[in-house]
């Protein structure tokens, strides 16, 4: 499926189930999400984490409803399944799409300006460097007997200084390689929206409405 439409669909579904309370639909969505995740053959560790990590907030919300409100078992079940629907539908989109495919599709299909697409992509590729920079900053602090915690302004300050430096370099590098803002571009990898993308999108949303209203009217 086209990456932009896939993410749009996942977000729309998540939004819709935030406002409805039908646990069967939530469960069905979670199962469909899980099936899509399984087709992408994720590593076993990832899959186990995907099952257990949502368990924490899901149980927390359900227990809180049972102990701290009069809403009862049904609503607790709704919240519990809602969390799983969120996570599985959301991960079904993220695990089957690469960052660059999504960004390319957003540029070509959703027509976001190319400076945003390539600016984001360029910065995103610095991710490993940033993770190591955080470690370097903390190590440098430790060497001076200064422990940097999540609440230390110096940690963020140094991170922003590094970002300033790199953003200047990266922007210059991109410009010197011929990138110019707003100029028309040709694409090495063309991403199209096919008719079946729209079909999947519209029919999934229709099915969701039918399921929600059908169960609601009962």
């Amino acid at each position, binding site marked *: 499926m086209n990456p932009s439409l896939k993410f749009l669909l996942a977000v729309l579904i998540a939004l819709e189930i935030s406002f409805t309370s039908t646990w069967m639909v939530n469960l069905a969505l979670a199962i469909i999400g899980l099936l899509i995740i399984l087709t992408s053959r994720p590593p076993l560790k990832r899959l186990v984490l995907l099952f257990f990590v949502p368990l924490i907030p899901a149980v927390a919300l359900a227990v809180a409803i049972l102990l*701290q409100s009069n809403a009862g078992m049904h609503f607790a079940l709704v919240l519990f399944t809602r969390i799983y629907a969120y996570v599985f539908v959301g991960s079904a989109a993220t695990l089957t799409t690469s*960052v660059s495919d999504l960004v390319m599709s957003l540029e070509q299909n959703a027509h976001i300006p190319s400076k945003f697409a390539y600016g984001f992509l360029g*910065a*995103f590729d610095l991710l490993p460097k940033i*993770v190591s920079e955080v470690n370097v900053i903390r190590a440098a602090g430790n060497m001076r007997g200064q422990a940097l915690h999540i609440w230390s*302004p110096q940690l963020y300050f140094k991170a922003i200084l590094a970002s300033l430096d790199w*953003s200047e370099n990266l922007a210059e590098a991109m410009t010197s390689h011929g990138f110019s803002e707003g100029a028309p571009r040709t694409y090495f990898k063309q991403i199209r929206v096919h008719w079946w993308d729209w079909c999947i999108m519209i029919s999934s949303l229709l099915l969701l409405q039918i399921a929600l209203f059908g169960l609601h009217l009962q």
Partner: protein
Amino acid sequence: MKYSNAWHLRDIILLTLIAIFFGVIYWVIGPLYNVLTVALTPVGLGPGANDVVMGIWVMAGPLSGYIFKKVGSATLGEFLGSVVEMFLGGQWGASTMISGVVQGVASELGFTFTGYKRYDWFSLNLSVLTTTIVTFGWDMIRNGYSKYHIGLLIALFIIRLISTWIFSGLLVKAIVKLLDRTHLMQTQSR
């Protein structure tokens, strides 16, 4: 000082880099949130963990609003932070983006109400307030907060307000103060 509203490549890269730093930090505190939730669950206060760490989740918004001083920068900063977290393998998948937009718009409102003219302690506090109110409203719908007894609801709101004030207010102010002393951010107005 007059700030331009146009986004240039360098700004976009800088914003993304800052968002990535925060995305990495969010990702690092993921476990903290989980541990706290587990600890509070037996007494039915598990969702409170969300309110305790809320200030950290929403920091990128007011900080980028303050640094870039452009319309939409707080929203974009927070949103990109959530996108980065999503691709790092945060626990919520694509749904993270919804929270990102809600939190971003929430912190943006503080600057909107001052007409994007004031960037000081007042607008920062206003942003803390709008962030708390809007994100709390969202949790009332999404996480079923609206069903709680009123006492707990008020307690959760106050916890969230304090957390947001400490991180998105005090800490952001301290960071911005350090940045202002370097005079590096003035290049932003080009």
